[in-house]
C-alpha cells in the first residue's frame, strides 16, 4: 500500500516537475524561435525587400540553415496569429 502511494506521489511529482519545466522554458523557447527567425530573416531578407549582407556570406551559410528556414516559414505562416500567441505566453486574457 505504502509502495503504491509512494509510486503515485513520485508520478505526481514527475508531472509537477514536467509542468514547471515546460512553463519555465516556454518563454525561452519562444525567444529562441524568434531569434532563429530573425537570424534567417537577416541573412535571406532580400527576398522580402530587407537589406541583406553581401551575397557570399548568405550563400556560405545557406547549407546549414535548414532549421532556421523551417522556422522562418512556420512563423511567416502564422504571422496573423502571433499577437494571440504572445498574449497566451504572457497569460494576457
Amino acid at each position, binding site marked *: 500500500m505504502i509502495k503504491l502511494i509512494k509510486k503515485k506521489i513520485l508520478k505526481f511529482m514527475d508531472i509537477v516537475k514536467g509542468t514547471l519545466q515546460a512553463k519555465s522554458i516556454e518563454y525561452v523557447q519562444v525567444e529562441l524561435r524568434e*531569434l532563429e527567425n530573425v537570424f534567417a530573416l537577416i541573412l535571406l531578407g532580400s527576398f522580402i525587400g530587407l537589406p541583406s549582407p553581401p551575397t557570399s556570406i548568405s550563400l556560405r*551559410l545557406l547549407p546549414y540553415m*535548414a532549421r532556421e528556414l523551417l522556422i522562418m516559414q512556420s512563423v511567416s505562416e502564422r504571422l496573423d496569429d502571433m499577437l494571440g500567441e504572445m498574449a497566451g505566453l504572457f497569460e494576457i486574457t
Partner: protein
Amino acid sequence: MNKEFKVYFFVGKGGVGKTTCAAAFAIGLADRGYRTLITSLDPAHNLGDVLDMKVGEEATRVLDNLYAIEVDFDKMIAKHLKELSDKIKDIYGYLRIFNLDRYVDTLRHSPGVEEYATLEKIIEIIKKNMKNKEYDVLVFDTPPTGLTIRIMALPTISLIWIKKLMELRLKILERRKAIERITGEKIKAFIAGKELELASIPEEDPIFKELKKMYSEINAINDLLINDKVTSVVMVVNPELLPVLEANRAYEFLKKLGIPVKSVIINKVIEIPSIPDELKVKIEMQNQAIRKVNELFRELTIIRIPFFSSEPRGVEDLRNISKYLEDLYKGL
C-alpha cells in the same frame, strides 16, 4: 602572412591617367630592380595600349623585372559565379532533374557581383604572391573611383555583418544551452524527416564555425589593406576642380576605412613659360585646382606630372614619366 612585398593601388576618376601613372611607376620599379607585377582591374582596359603591347590574362613579360596582367572581366565574373552557383547547385542539386539549375546563372546580374569578383581577383593575386613570393611589388590599376571604393569597402562591410551575425548566433546558442540545462537533454529538431540534435556551444555549431572561418579569412585581407607597411593608395587627379573634389571624397572614405592613402599625383599639368591669351583662363583654373590639391591633401606627398605634347605610349615614354615619381620610390 608574408608582409615583405608591397601593394599599390592607383585610384582616380575615369580618364585622369591612372593607367599611365601606374605603368610608369611599375617601369621605374622594374628599373630599380624590384620584381613587379602590374594588374589592370579596369573593365575598360588600356594597360596594353599604354604599354603598346599585347597584355593577356596571364602574367605577360614587359621587361626583365616587370610583368603585366589585364584581368578579363567576363571570365572573372564567370569564375566567381561558377563558384557561387556550384555551391547552390550542390545544395539544390535536385533542380538538375528539371533542368532548372541553369536559372541559377541569372546570379550574374545580381547587384554587387562585379565588386565581389574584383575583390576576389585582388585576393587571389595577393595570396598567390604570399605563397610563391614571385614579386616584390604588386601594382593595381583600378576601375574609376566609385567602383574602387565600393570594392575596398567590401571587407569592412562584410566584417561588420559577420560580427553582428556572430553576436546573434551566440544569443541563439545561449538560449539553447539554457533549455538544455532545464530539460537535461539536447534540443531535437526534425529536418527532412530526420531527428537531429541541435548544437548549443559555438565549437559545435556549424553556422558559428563558418562565420568564424569567414571572419578570419576576410580579416586577413582587411589587415593587409589597412597595413601601411604593405598597402599604399596613390590618388591620381588632373588639375581640374571636379577630379580633385572627387578624389577628396574618395580620400575621406578610404581614411574612414583605415586604408592608407599616401600620395596624390597631379597628372597633365600644363607648364608653358609664356601663356597665350587663349589659354590664360584654363591656366588660372589649373592653378586654382592645384591650390585646392595643396589645401586638401596637405598630409600627403604631392607629385606633379606635366602635360606632354604627344600621348605617352610604350616603355620609353613611360620610363620618362617615371622620373617624375621619384617621391613615390622613396616610400619603398
